[in-house]
């Protein structure tokens, strides 16, 4: 091979075009670019850059909301009617002006299609039968939205800031059909989809009709590169401007390079371990607590998760309203042993753990296996691909599971609703919250979670989530390990790239390049 390459080796053209941002990123998770359907990480970033929503949160203070397409809004005294006024003069990529009819159509369409992200809107009491009555155009630039209960205003507005609340060009979608929107775009954001080749590339072109601050670049290319080490090499060679899925060892290797800057922001994803309460051993409160003392959180943060996550022990990630910094647990084997003895298990026990064969989860599971063994708990790891382990997890067939959870929208209810809500613990329950998957029967906590949703006072609402998290830390079958970070390696000639805490808030319009 080495003999053959010199003759083959024509000069490899490095460095990306001046007018184009090239990002190396794993984009093989993408299955749809339709905001009513898209729920993948890579898709979130594209939809976030192509569409606008009524509301957005402030990246400097994610707990603050502001209008995106909405110029302003009022809330009725009973907290059930929201009247929005749109900014005038906003245009779609097609050149049409955005009006309230487009917003109403988009929200109604997302509910009507009933794809996975629609739950973010249907939890406001909207369904196929009533959404045309609950979401109406009340004037050319006015929209009236009704909700079925007096929810906390922050909750309603946060839901509308999610990607599923993106506003599509009504006329274009009517002309081309819903299927067309899976691979194309009809938004008013700074970019428009030019092409998506599944598992290969996504190309966004500058929207010439964008009414906000126009991007200085003409094009953004998401080039599918799965391997972190490959992303690093391409970044170093200048074949990409940004690398988005760097593993700790590659972040370390890039740290000293003068051509590369590293950027990082905490995001709404968590790593956690959970214990299925259908297993009588794991249902013992002492065993649940013992496991929480069998994790070296700091070591995880300093080694396996270095640069990509930091230790965190609560179900609300930092940045969300009501997030807690409390971290009472650390590695304490003797304390764990004492708890096991109290549970009548002084010699430990054998148990299985479902683990997705992917990093860093696999290494985290192996580390956990070793820590647990020190207290006499023999964990047998059951490896599987992501879909296999998830299928078993959703069927409540696991003993211990290690996984990730990302906030679906920027409101504390998204995680409270899954970690501390399980209104129906029966096997045939409709909703598969994480509490349900682990058969954690919690009628009182479920009720408190619902109550927090209706708390209009933001400070009181934050306190309610703090209290829920305290109960969660003490009682739950979940061991929250760390909060993920969004990281990127960026070439020094790229300016203005700012990652957001959610996939749809890494805005690319301000990015520019120097020579």
């Amino acid at each position, binding site marked *: *091979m080495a003999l*053959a*390459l*010199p003759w*083959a*080796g*024509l*000069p*490899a*053209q*490095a460095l*990306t*075009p001046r007018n*184009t941002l*090239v990002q190396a990123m794993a984009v*093989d998770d993408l*299955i*749809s670019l339709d905001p009513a359907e898209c*729920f*993948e990480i890579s898709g979130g970033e594209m939809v976030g850059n192509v569409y606008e929503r009524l509301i957005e949160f402030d990246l400097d203070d994610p707990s603050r909301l502001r209008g995106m397409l909405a110029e302003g809004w009022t809330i009725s005294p009973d907290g059930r009617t929201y009247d929005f006024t749109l900014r005038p003069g906003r245009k779609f990529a097609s050149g049409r002006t955005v009006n309230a009819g487009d917003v109403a159509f988009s929200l109604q369409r997302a509910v009507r299609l*009933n*794809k*996975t*992200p629609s*739950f973010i809107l249907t939890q406001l009491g909207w369904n196929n039968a009533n959404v045309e009555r609950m979401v109406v155009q009340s004037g050319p630039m006015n929209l009236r939205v009704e909700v079925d209960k007096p929810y906390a205003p922050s909750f309603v507005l946060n839901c509308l800031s999610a990607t599923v609340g993106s506003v599509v060009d009504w006329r274009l979608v009517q002309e081309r059909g819903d*299927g067309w929107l*899976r*691979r194309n775009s009809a938004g008013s954001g700074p970019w428009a989809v030019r092409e998506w*080749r*599944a*598992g*290969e*590339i996504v*190309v966004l072109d500058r929207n010439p009709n964008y009414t906000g601050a126009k991007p200085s670049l003409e094009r953004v*290319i998401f*080039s*599918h*590169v*799965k*391997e972190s*080490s*490959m992303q690093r*090499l*391409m970044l*170093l*060679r200048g*074949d990409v401007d940004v690398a988005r899925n760097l593993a700790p060892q590659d972040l370390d290797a890039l740290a000293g390079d003068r051509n590369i800057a590293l950027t990082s922001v905490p995001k709404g994803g968590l790593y956690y371990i959970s214990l299925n309460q259908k297993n009588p051993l794991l249902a013992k409160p002492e065993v649940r607590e013992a496991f929480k003392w069998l994790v070296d959180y700091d070591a995880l943060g300093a080694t396996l998760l270095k640069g990509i996550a930091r230790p965190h022990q609560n179900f609300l990630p930092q940045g969300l309203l009501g997030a807690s910094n409390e971290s009472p647990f650390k590695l304490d084997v003797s304390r764990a042993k004492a708890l096991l003895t109290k549970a009548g298990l002084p010699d430990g026990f054998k148990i299985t753990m479902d683990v997705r064969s992917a990093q860093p989860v696999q290494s985290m599971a192996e580390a956990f296996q070793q820590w647990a063994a020190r207290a006499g708990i023999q964990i047998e790891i059951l490896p599987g*691909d*992501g*879909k*296999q382990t*998830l*299928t*078993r997890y*959703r069927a409540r067939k696991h003993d211990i599971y290690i996984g990730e959870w990302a906030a679906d929208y920027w409101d504390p209810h998204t995680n409270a609703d899954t970690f501390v809500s399980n209104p129906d613990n029966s096997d*045939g*329950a*409709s*909703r*598969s919250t994480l509490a349900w998957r682990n058969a954690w029967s919690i009628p009182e906590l479920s009720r408190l979670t619902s109550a927090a949703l209706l708390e209009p006072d933001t400070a009181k609402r934050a306190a309610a989530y703090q209290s829920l998290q305290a109960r969660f830390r003490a009682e739950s079958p979940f061991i929250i390990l760390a909060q993920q970070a969004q990281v990127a390696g960026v070439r020094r000639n790229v300016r203005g790239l700012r990652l957001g805490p959610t996939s749809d808030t890494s805005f690319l319009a301000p990015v520019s390049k120097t020579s």
Partner: protein
Amino acid sequence: MMKFARLILSLLLTALGLLAVTFLIGRVVPTDPALSVAGDRATREQLEQVRKELGLDKPLYEQFGRYVASVARGDLGDSLLTGNPVTQDIGRVFPATLELATVGILFGAGLGIPLGVWAAVRRGGWPDQLSRVLGLVGYSAPIFWLGLMGLLLFYAELGWVGGPGRINVGFLYTVPPRTGLMLVDTVLAGDADAFASAFSHIALPGALLGYFSLAYISRMTRSFMLKELSSEYVVAARAKGLSEQRIIWRHALRNAAVPLLTVVALSYAGLLEGSVLTETVFSWPGLGQYITHALQSADMNAVLGGTLVVGAVFIGINLLSDVLYRWMDPRTK
């Protein structure tokens, strides 16, 4: 005529068997295909809705029957992941694999055959040892590791070759896609820079794949040549005073070429199945990566369609090698 009909029937049964086995394996894997579409957050009702849309609520035999009927009409169904017809997806990814495999086999056969001949002629000498070591490394070194090391050295350090992908992004919309074969399309476009970029991108993965073929082809060539060189006609040729070069290249290799053809054809078919690891390391958007990703996501239409294409390629190349075999060796007719 009967012979031809028997051949067609046998091919159809092979394809049906291939589909049946793949279909059954796909269904016994403990993975819910509806999860791939609906996602982790889906409610039970949404999952049921997706299962219904995909026809997964029907009995297994009915699902298979419907699928075979649609295949017979030339419809491989739609991919769950891309939303495209599988035929369209395969039409996009297969040329990438075809191009890579062709470069690989040209490399493997182009170097492997002379190396094998040389090793046979200098049996026990250093060319033979070299061929043995190259073969051993080719058989035993993990392709994933070799690919990463190759990229590190030839791409990152020396800059001799292009990185992952098929061409530099600067040429993304400058070369009209006519055949899907990047080298051919760049030539048709008359763009020398684009050709150089495409060539520099395929050189390393092509050479790497070719190296694995080279290891096999050179060892087999050596073995065939040793047999030929010890034949009586070679002794007679030497007695007649023919030059050694003429004996080796014109007589012995010509006879060795007949079984060698099968070896090269099978190697080529193996490469055309899509080398998953090579395609992964080099972010090469080919058939191997497509099928693997589909398999991981329980995208059965894509898996079945891809498998059918792989099967067809394998059968086709086997048939072709049989035909060539008969043409090259009249005794087999």
